[in-house]
Each structure stands twice: as structure tokens, then as C-alpha cells.
């Protein structure tokens, strides 16, 4: 009950704070601390969701320096997502997407010695979606709003036993929109049917996430599940061919920008999973404004030759003036590079 009460108060504040502040100031939609929202029960770091806070996962995810992510969605009391024919949703005002980034000390034991880095909220405010990052303190008891970004040292042992140290970057308020944008409007990326259309382990059993959301009366107008697409998990060879998994990797890691209506459109390179035009996908396409990102190569993709493909060169770089994507990583996603290289090598 206490949680529901505090949630009601939050929505009241989020909705009416507009009246009390005349300035279009992003801070008015954010609370100073993560605990102020009441999303989690008991010890906050354990992320046991409060009532109405629904965990979910996406089948393909943006590489963020190997950080693991926990995701949750909160809809305002009694309201639903509206399914759209393009496979995305209209979210009611007041919706919040919650995503916590964390590292285990050793990826070979991913559930032990966990360090929470940040929790990002994507909040659907009366002025559109806004992204807020909360940075966890050393003692992991609280996370504080940080709108200007932060850099945090972190080290972990990768699943291949390699020790990795890096300066983890928390994005600033503007950088959130750098990825989450379409036609100047900020939008969510993950919750689309093709990324949600798979099984999830709930406390009361495993179920397809869309089916679960339908049962929980979270969606209006969802078509029959069998008609809906599914993006394969690019890490799982059983989920699709190399080409299919490569396109899944490229879609989730590149297409938030490289798509009509998003900042990467200036390049004429369109990498969303629906794109089928070979030139727009980069095949024998010369770069436009890549600068030294071209690495002295002529084309984004040279079929059969990943070593001569700008796409691979930029995926393999960690130089801020060369690497792609521009944000979200300091490391190379070795597994992703290997997959995309294989795809290009097999291309005729």
C-alpha cells in the first residue's frame, strides 16, 4: 500500500509540477534520488520490483561496454500501451522505463559481487520523453540524479578470463536523446514487439512477454502473437543464421541513428532491420562525411572482404573520432565484430 501511495504522489507531482514552474526545465520531471520513486521493495539494490513495476528483457541489446542490464516498465494506474502497426507502442503519459546497468566482478559468476553503476529512467512527461540517469553510490544504498553525465572507473573479469578496466560513462541528459530520437522527438528503443516477443522467467513461471503484458492488461490492440516478428538474440547461434543475427546486432547497435529521421541519416546509410536496399545498407556505398572514420577505405561494406569494409573498421576502433557507435562504449564488442565480419565474409 505504501508503494502505491507513494507512486500516486509521484504522478501527482510529475503531472502538476508544470503549474508551479514556468521554466521548461528538465529537472522538474526528475526526483533527486532513485529511492524517491519507490520502484523497488526492501533493499533497493536487489531490484525486487514493487507492485506495478514489471521486469522485461529485449532479445537484442545495445552493447554498453559489456554492462549487464535489468529492465522494468511502469505504466500509470489503469492505462495501457497502444499497439501500432509498425510494431512499436504508443505509451500513455506517465510511463517510465527503468534500466539498471551493472557489472559482476567476474562474468563467469554473473550473479555474484555485483556493482550497480547507474539506473536510467526514460519518463514520458507532458513535454515528451526525457531520460534521467541516477548514479549509484559506493555503498549501493542509493542512486542520485546526474544530468551532466559522469565517468566512473570499473574493472571486471570477462567471460574469457581477461581482466578489463575502463572508465564507464554515464550519459548526460542530451546524450540520451542522441540515440532515443526520431523526427526530433525522443522515443524508447527497446520496447518494440520484435524485441519483446520471447519468453521471460517471471517469479510465477516462464511466459512470452507480450502474452504476459496482455494478460496484465498492459496492451490494447495486440495482434495474434504468431503474426508478430521476433528479433533473434545475436549471441545465440540457435536463434538465427549469421546474416539474421548480424542484422539484429546492427539494428540494435546502429539503427537508432542510421535510419530515416534520425541523426545518422545525413550519411545516407540506413541500417534498420527492415532496410533491404543494398546501397542504403552500405554495400559498395562510399562514405559521405566519415572523415578519418573511413580508414582509407572506399566502401561501408565490401562483400567478401570485412577487412576492407568501413563498417568493421569503425566497430573495431575505440578512437572517439572513428568509432561507431559514437556513444555508449569505450571497448570493442569482440563478439559482435566477429559476427558482422563473418556475415560480410560470407556475402557474395
Amino acid at each position, binding site marked *: 500500500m505504501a508503494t502505491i501511495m507513494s507512486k500516486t504522489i509521484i504522478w501527482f507531482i510529475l503531472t502538476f509540477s508544470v503549474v508551479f514552474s514556468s*521554466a*521548461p*526545465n*528538465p*529537472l522538474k520531471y526528475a526526483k*533527486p534520488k532513485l529511492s524517491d520513486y519507490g520502484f523497488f521493495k526492501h533493499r533497493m539494490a536487489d531490484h525486487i520490483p514493487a507492485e506495478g513495476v514489471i521486469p522485461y528483457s529485449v532479445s537484442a541489446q545495445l552493447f554498453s561496454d559489456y554492462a549487464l542490464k535489468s529492465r522494468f516498465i511502469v505504466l500509470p494506474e489503469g492505462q495501457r500501451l497502444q499497439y501500432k502497426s509498425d510494431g512499436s507502442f504508443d505509451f500513455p503519459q506517465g510511463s517510465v522505463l527503468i534500466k539498471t546497468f551493472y557489472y559482476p566482478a567476474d562474468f563467469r559468476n554473473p550473479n555474484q559481487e555485483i556493482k550497480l553503476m547507474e539506473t536510467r529512467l526514460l519518463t514520458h512527461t507532458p513535454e515528451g520523453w526525457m531520460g534521467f540517469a541516477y548514479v549509484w553510490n559506493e555503498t549501493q544504498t542509493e542512486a*542520485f540524479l*546526474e*544530468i*551532466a*553525465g559522469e*565517468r566512473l572507473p570499473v574493472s571486471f573479469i570477462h567471460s574469457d578470463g581477461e581482466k578489463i578496466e575502463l*572508465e564507464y*560513462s554515464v550519459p*548526460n*541528459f*542530451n*546524450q540520451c*536523446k*542522441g540515440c532515443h530520437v526520431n523526427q*526530433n522527438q525522443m522515443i524508447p528503443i527497446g520496447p518494440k514487439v520484435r524485441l519483446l516477443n520471447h519468453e521471460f522467467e517471471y517469479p510465477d513461471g516462464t511466459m512470452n512477454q507480450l502474452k504476459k503484458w496482455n494478460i496484465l492488461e498492459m496492451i490494447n490492440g495486440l495482434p495474434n502473437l504468431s503474426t508478430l516478428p521476433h528479433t533473434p538474440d545475436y549471441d545465440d547461434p540457435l536463434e538465427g543464421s549469421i546474416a539474421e543475427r548480424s542484422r539484429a546486432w546492427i539494428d540494435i547497435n546502429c539503427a537508432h541513428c542510421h535510419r*530515416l529521421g534520425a*541523426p545518422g*541519416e*545525413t550519411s*545516407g546509410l540506413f541500417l534498420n532491420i527492415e532496410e533491404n536496399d*543494398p*546501397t*542504403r545498407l552500405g554495400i*559498395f*556505398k*562510399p*562514405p*559521405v*562525411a*566519415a*572523415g*578519418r*572514420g*573511413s*580508414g*582509407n*577505405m*572506399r*566502401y561501408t561494406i565490401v562483400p567478401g572482404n570485412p577487412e576492407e569494409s*568501413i563498417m568493421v573498421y569503425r566497430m573495431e576502433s575505440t*578512437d*572517439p*573520432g*572513428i*568509432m561507431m557507435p*559514437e*556513444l555508449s562504449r*569505450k571497448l570493442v564488442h569482440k563478439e559482435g565484430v566477429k559476427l558482422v565480419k563473418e556475415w560480410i565474409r560470407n556475402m557474395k
Partner: protein
Amino acid sequence: MRYKAFIVSLFIISQGLAIDTEKDLQTQFILAEPGDTITIPKGTHNIKGALSIEGKENLVIRGSGMNRSILSFAGQTEGAQGISITNSTNIILEDFSVHDTKGDAIKVQYTDGIIFRRVSAEWTGGPKETNGAYGLYPVLCQNVLIEHSVAIAASDAGIYVGQSRNIVVRYSIAVNNVAGIEIENSIDAEVYENHTYDNTGGILIFDLPDLVQKKGGHIRVYNNLIENNNLFNFAPKGAIVGKVIPGTGVMVLATSDVHVYENTIRNNKSVATGIVSYFITEEAINDSLYNPYTSSIHIYNNIYERSPGLPALDYEIGQLLAIKYGRNTPDIIYDGMPDPAYINADGVILPESNLCIQNNSDARFTNMDIENNFEKWYSPFLSDFSEDLTPFHCGITHHPVATSK
């Protein structure tokens, strides 16, 4: 304002952080309200990540002068730009410098009303392939004014306006870049009273395929001093400007309705002024909506000067010109590829679409007539270049210099 300053300081104090310029500026950029002026303090400030302005209106970002307020990105670890401005309206940048960014210095996208005034973008180690691509870089913008500004040592274009509308670039200096000033796939641009020197190419007017804004045009380039653009081409090879031959003054590529007049174009050793189709790049065209030809290009009332000397011989076109003309390379070079859409049934180019070259002082001309010379291209002694300008005297009385916008 006071409320906001309070919030900012409360915010910073609550985080227990020392106030550093990067975080302070970024916080101000995020919290800015319409009408605000944000000050870049005096001094050289080391910035590690790209600074961004998103969705703001009526902002002034002001330093104390190009030599006094310097944002140095020499130690940059994050972000592909120095400053990134997106989805904004009426932004004024004044009196500061951005140095040594890993990628572009100042990129402005989807913005209506952007002014760069006394702003400098510079790579302080001089021309190097590892420098960022663009200095001052508005793309997919409208109402762009760049004035009294400076761009030094960009590995692509110093001042680069792409896929934009209604543009003025004036009173600015571009030096040691691959391209000094480049206007690409843009409409309604005036480029005047600039000084471009010691670049690979001085001023480039390009239309390229596969872009969102397809067609540029209505571009006026006048009263510029374009000299000694003989710098080696240090662009990464994949870049289209990597194909620009050192010694280029003005190059018009695949664009329509461009007037180049009353400029002084001197001592650019290879191609003082080139009018060429996209075919010169020898790249395939996969964009069905793209027009690779030039049309309605007017070159008039310019002053050409050139001391005898060889063109750049490490480029095919330079070799060709050297074999044909030795140390006396012509000033105006046309590839002879008119747009077939403007040729009538009798094989005559419609007058309003033809190339017009007249009243230039000391201008020597060659028409490479590539279409008819193509097979002889590799035996230049046999190719018939025409120096005859008569077909290109259009007889139009050109109006005097347009008044500035």
C-alpha cells in the same frame, strides 16, 4: 535565472564535485532557457567529452574572443564532436575557439537559425590525416550565417555546410584544410569576402548522391580571395574530397545554378576553377534520384593570376594537364559533360542551362570534352581539348554584386 543558478550550484554541491568547466558548461547547456547567454570563461579549458546542446531556443554561447576562450579537446576520450547542437532554433555562437577535436569541431544539425560569429575551429598540430573531418559544420539546417570565423587544418572541410538552406558564409578565413569552404547539397547559399588560402582546394560546391537533401543550387560565390591552395591532400582516402587535386581554387561538382564572380583566384597550380560532373570521381552511382551533371554554371568577372608551374603530378588529371599544357595549366577547366536533359533534338544545349564563362581577366580555358575524348583519355596527346570559349559566351549581362542578406 537566480533560481536556476541556485539549482545548478545545489546540484553540483549535492554531488560533492569540484566545479570543472566541462561539467559546468554541459549543465548550463542542459538547463538553459530561451534568452539565456552562456559564457565560456577566459582561458584554455581541457574538455574530455563532447558538449551538447539539444532542443534549445534563442541561446547565445559567448566567449571572450577566439584567442581568449579556448575549448581544447586534445585529451578527448568521448564523443565524436567538440560541440554538438541539434534540434534547436536561433543559436548564436560568438568569440571562442574549439581546438583539436577527435572528430568534427562544431556540428549543428536540424537547426533553424545558427550563427557562427568570430568562432574558430583549429587543429593546432597543422594539417594531418588524424585531424577531425570538419571545422564549422552545419548540416540539415536552415538560416545559417558564418562570419568573421576561422577554420584551420580540418582533414576534410574547414567550413562545411551540408544539406542546408539559406546560407551566408562571409568575412571568414580557411587555411590549411583539405577543402577551405565546402557547400554540399545545399540551396540558396552566398559565399563572399572570404579568404581561403593554403588549402588543398579553396572553395568547393558539390552535389553528392545518396543523401537526404538531394539537390543543391542557387549558389553565389563572389568577392573572395582564393589563393595558393596547393596544400597536399591529407584527407583519408574514402572521403570524396580525397579526390580533390592539390592546387584547386574553386570546384563546382554536379551542381546547378552556381555563379562564381568577381573573385580573385590566383596561384592555384592545378585547377583554378573546375566545372565537373560526378563522373570525374569514377564512383558508381546507385541513387536513381541523383543528377550527376552540372548545369547553369556562370563564371564571370573574376581575376585570374598564375605564375608558370606544373600542376600536381600525383593526380591523373594533373598528369594529363601537364602533358598537354606543360607549365601553363589553363585556369578554367570544364569536363565537357552537359546535362543531357537540357540538350534539344538538334543536339544544342538550352541557352539557360549552358555553361557561361565571360569577362574574366587573364583566364585561359580548356574543355576536356570527356565524352568525346574518353577513349583517348590515356593518350592525352591525341585528345582534342578545346580552348575555344565562344560557345560559352552566353551574352547575359550579369547584375552587379547582390546585396547581402
